[in-house]
């Protein structure tokens, strides 16, 4: 067991006080209740900070509120009830974030897996049973077996069990750790896990060993500090994303290449920030787990980088792969066994990352990028391990000049390691070898060529290190001259620097650091509070506006997780970024991975969509915004995905309502890219000339569909366009105010719809759409239909499409008063050639040759022609609609 001082050092806490056995022992000046109050206040401020900066998503912020309440109750409970309470809190967190149904699935399957581990059979039988169950889950996850399991549960369930189950079985096999069910279940259902599918691989023995291994409140204080540090990482990540990141397509010179390499690597800040937050949240409840990422930018060798970048993964690999491999090959000799073990570790890491990808995103990902990255890193670590021992055995130096040389050598190693890792990381995250090579080729055209990229990275790394190294040398000198006692803050500083640079509490400062006892409780607490207060100030526009427009803009950009197109492109290019975007970007239900092929996300689990209990079933949340499938979705105050409109129609303006579902909303495309925006833009070309009216097309989705009279204007729109998802057509109908159609009315036969006589076309269209929505509205299978609806073929293709349309309609036949094909706006619009250019959601950022749905059906490109054609077509369509339900003018 580590000494109290070392354990404290690992956790970054004050050694002398963490060894105290009771909360009151940890402080000489504050009672435990006062300390709890201080911690609760700090935690509340952190929660406020997370809300101000919109850290992660709504689900996470809800979990933070739950954590705050839970922490307070947890602190008031007697010791024996705290672990069970933590378990209950974790289960509640799953229900809050995932919802009760999905949460029940996760907990149910998890309890079954956990129960199998404890069946009263031989270990091999239990393992065999688990393998069978796991195979069944793989089949369901991959879609090979059709079981109605909610897609939202897989990333969370996979994250909880894919690695931890291995470690748990390992501990059972070797008799390590306790057999407490409470502790075991708490180990799997760790509170923050439901929000972070990319989760540190916590070892069960570490989990047990570090549980309340010191003063609880000290541990909790460390947790708050780590959470604050994590938020700083996440904000830095946003800063890099918004203001520093360079797209690979923008690289045209050496410095740009260097900038790309460095910022691309710095995107890992999001992972390290999340890991800090995760560990911090667990420390609040007594789990004194070690830090997850330890100054990985200061790694002085590739082995050092491997040890620092993800400590939990390294420990997992050591336990599950490295040590067993070494003992298996030990007969070959120590050196050979070590080499074999290192190679096996990196091969296993490659495969296990693909395995992780499968559970989080639904597909097994083995790419050349992964193989190249892990292969090269294995070679580098292997070679480095040979030199590392030699460096460690170098004779000590006592002179300042010697210390200077040693520090300079270390600085160069750090710079070289960082530069090499940036290059490797860029290779790993490249879309293709051609893209990666292209950057270097373009940079080669620069006068200084790729050399300047390396130099730039070295300079950036060197500048950062300069201050640290100088301080380290100064600290060494100070300690040497003062015998490590009189100037305590300097010795503490020196000890901390040594810890950060060398990664351990050793060296000539090892004895000195013992005096770094941080006697006063207020010291770290004050620092953390100051950090939180500073961030809160920065999140307040009233305080930041005097700093200048540019600064205010930068801070504003960091207050939301909105991403630019370029950022989004970068996000989608890297392993972790893909993983985070695919497995975590989803707010409350987290990630809904609806299909193994596409990894669709549930729009109505974002903060802009929600379920409703009326006829429509789903609606947009007014005045909200979120990123969805790479596009920013902004909903105006009327619940439309559109810009703000005045309630009173401006003079000389024709107002058109576009009604519909996901196509109308613009599934997966930007606000300005959906067909409604394009329609409005095209219609308005040339408006105002010669008395031509202006056009406003307003998008009405969900609830606004039949409540349009309350949505826009004091008068109903002059024309209403119904964009239906279940037929290859767009209908035009006259809006007629009336009572909304209720959901229960809609569920019956369309012939029984109560308002069919009132406004038959609208109701008929709604009826058909409603039934479809009852199915898999946002399942991948529905998307091609929606895309096809708008993807009107050019010229002769329109007729072919029109003939094919009936075969895709429901077999039950159309309901009463469904518009005849002759009223099919889309077909007629296609025939007239005016409705082109609306972007298919499936075709987002895909070359034309790849615009096809999951069934391989290809769709032709679209474009909008002249606005005059547009206007005349729309007038014609409205005028020719059955019963003359629409007119414009």
């Amino acid at each position, binding site marked *: *067991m*580590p*000494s109290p*001082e*070392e*354990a404290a*050092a*690992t956790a970054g806490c004050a050694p002398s006080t963490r060894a105290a056995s009771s909360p009151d022992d940890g402080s000489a000046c504050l009672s435990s209740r006062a300390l709890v109050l201080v911690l609760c206040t700090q935690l509340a401020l952190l929660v406020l900070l997370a809300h101000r900066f919109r850290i992660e998503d709504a689900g996470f912020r809800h979990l933070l509120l739950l954590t705050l309440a839970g922490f307070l109750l947890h602190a008031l409970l007697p010791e024996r009830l705290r672990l069970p309470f933590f378990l209950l809190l974790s289960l509640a967190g799953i229900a809050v974030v995932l919802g009760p149904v999905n949460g029940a699935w996760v907990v149910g399957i998890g309890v079954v897996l956990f129960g199998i581990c404890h069946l009263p059979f031989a270990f091999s039988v239990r393992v065999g049973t688990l393998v069978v169950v796991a195979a069944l889950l793989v089949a369901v996850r991959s879609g090979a077996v059709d079981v109605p399991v909610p897609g939202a549960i897989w990333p969370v369930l996979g994250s909880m069990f894919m690695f931890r189950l291995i470690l748990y079985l*390992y501990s059972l*096999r*070797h008799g*390590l750790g306790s057999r407490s069910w409470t502790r075991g279940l708490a180990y799997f259902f760790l509170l923050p896990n439901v929000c972070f599918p990319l989760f540190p691989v916590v070892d069960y*023995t*570490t989990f047990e*060993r570090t549980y309340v291994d010191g003063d609880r409140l000290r541990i909790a204080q460390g947790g708050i500090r780590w959470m604050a540090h994590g938020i700083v990482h996440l904000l830095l990540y946003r800063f890099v994303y918004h203001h520093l990141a360079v797209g690979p397509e923008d690289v045209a010179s050496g410095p740009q290449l260097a900038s790309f390499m460095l910022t691309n690597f710095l995107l890992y800040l999001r992972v390290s920030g999340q890991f800090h937050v995760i560990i911090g949240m667990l420390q609040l409840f007594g789990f004194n787990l*070690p830090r997850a990422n330890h100054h990985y930018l200061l790694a002085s060798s590739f*082995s050092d980088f491997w*040890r620092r970048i993800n400590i939990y993964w390294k420990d997992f690999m*050591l*336990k599950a792969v*490295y*040590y*067993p491999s*070494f*003992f298996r090959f*030990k007969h070959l000799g*120590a050196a050979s*066994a*070590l080499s074999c073990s290192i190679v096996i570790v990196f091969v296993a890491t490659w495969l296990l990352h693909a395995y992780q990808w499968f559970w989080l995103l639904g597909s097994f990902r083995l790419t050349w990028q992964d193989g190249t990255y892990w292969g090269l890193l294995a070679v580098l670590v292997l070679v480095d*391990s040979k030199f*590392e*021992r030699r460096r*460690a*055995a*170098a*004779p*000590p*130096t006592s002179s300042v000049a010697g210390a200077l040389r040693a520090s300079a050598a270390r600085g160069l190693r750090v710079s070289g390691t960082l530069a090499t890792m940036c290059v490797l990381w860029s290779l790993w995250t490249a879309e293709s070898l051609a893209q990666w090579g292209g950057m270097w080729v373009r940079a080669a055209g620069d006068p200084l060529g790729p050399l300047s990229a390396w130099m730039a990275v070295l300079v950036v790394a060197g500048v950062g290190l300069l201050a640290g190294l100088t301080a380290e040398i100064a600290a060494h000198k100070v300690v040497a001259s003062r015998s490590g006692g009189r100037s305590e803050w300097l010795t503490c500083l020196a000890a901390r620097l040594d810890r950060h640079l*060398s*990664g*351990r*509490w*050793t*060296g*000539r400062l*090892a*004895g000195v650091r013992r005096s770094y006892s941080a006697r006063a409780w207020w010291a770290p607490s004050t620092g953390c509070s100051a950090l939180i207060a500073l961030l809160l100030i920065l999140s307040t526009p009233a305080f930041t506006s005097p700093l200048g427009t540019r600064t205010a803009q930068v801070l504003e950009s960091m207050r939301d997780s909105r991403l630019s197109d370029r950022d989004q492109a970068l996000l989608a290019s890297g392993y972790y970024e893909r993983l985070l975007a695919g497995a975590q970007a989803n707010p409350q239900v987290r990630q809904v991975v609806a299909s193994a092929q596409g990894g669709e996300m549930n729009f109505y689990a974002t903060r802009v969509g929600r379920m409703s209990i009326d006829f429509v079933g789903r609606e947009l949340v007014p005045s909200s915004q979120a990123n969805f499938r790479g596009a920013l979705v902004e909903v105006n105050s009327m619940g439309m995905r559109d810009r703000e409109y005045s309630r009173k129609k401006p003079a000389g303006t024709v107002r058109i309502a576009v009604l519909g579902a996901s196509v109308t909303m613009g599934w997966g495309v930007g606000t300005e890219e959906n067909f409604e925006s394009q329609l409005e833009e095209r219609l308005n070309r040339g408006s105002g000339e010669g008395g031509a009216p202006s056009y406003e097309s307003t998008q009405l989705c969900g609830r606004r569909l039949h409540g349009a009279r309350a949505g826009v204007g004091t008068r109903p729109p002059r024309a209403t366009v119904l964009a239906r998802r279940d037929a290859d057509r767009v209908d035009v109908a006259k809006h007629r105010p009336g009572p909304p159609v209720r959901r229960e009315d809609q569920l019956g036969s369309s012939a029984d719809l109560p308002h069919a006589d009132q406004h038959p076309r609208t109701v008929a269209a709604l009826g058909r759409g409603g039934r479809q929505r009852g199915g898999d509205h946002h399942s991948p299978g529905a998307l091609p239909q929606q895309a096809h609806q708008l993807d009107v073929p050019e010229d002769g293709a329109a007729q072919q499409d029109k003939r094919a349309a009936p075969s895709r309609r429901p077999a039950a036949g159309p309901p009463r008063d469904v518009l005849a094909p002759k009223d099919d706006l889309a077909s007629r619009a296609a025939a007239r050639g005016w409705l082109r250019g609306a972007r298919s959601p499936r075709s987002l950022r895909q070359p034309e040759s790849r615009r096809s749905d999951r069934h391989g059906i290809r769709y032709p490109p679209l474009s909008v022609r002249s606005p005059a054609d547009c206007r005349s077509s729309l007038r014609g369509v409205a005028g020719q609609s059955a019963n003359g339900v629409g007119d414009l003018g």
Partner: protein
Amino acid sequence: MVDPSDNDIREVVHGYLVSQVLPTDDPASLTDETALLTGGILDSIATLQLVVLLEDKFDVSLAAHEVSVDNFDSIAAIVRLVGTKLGR
């Protein structure tokens, strides 16, 4: 080595750490309770080299799962482990 005492084991481990892992450190700063694994002193390679050394010196056989924080995080823990392997 025939029936080594705890001190013998301690000296071997201490000597290995001072000479191979912490050559620049003050030997006095390395105590029986200094955290080796959790303190970052022993990395994976050094740990396995120490395992090989212990097996050779004291004619004991260690298993992979015994290379853990419980058994290798301090000189005292290593002495206990080897002592257990020697049947004490």
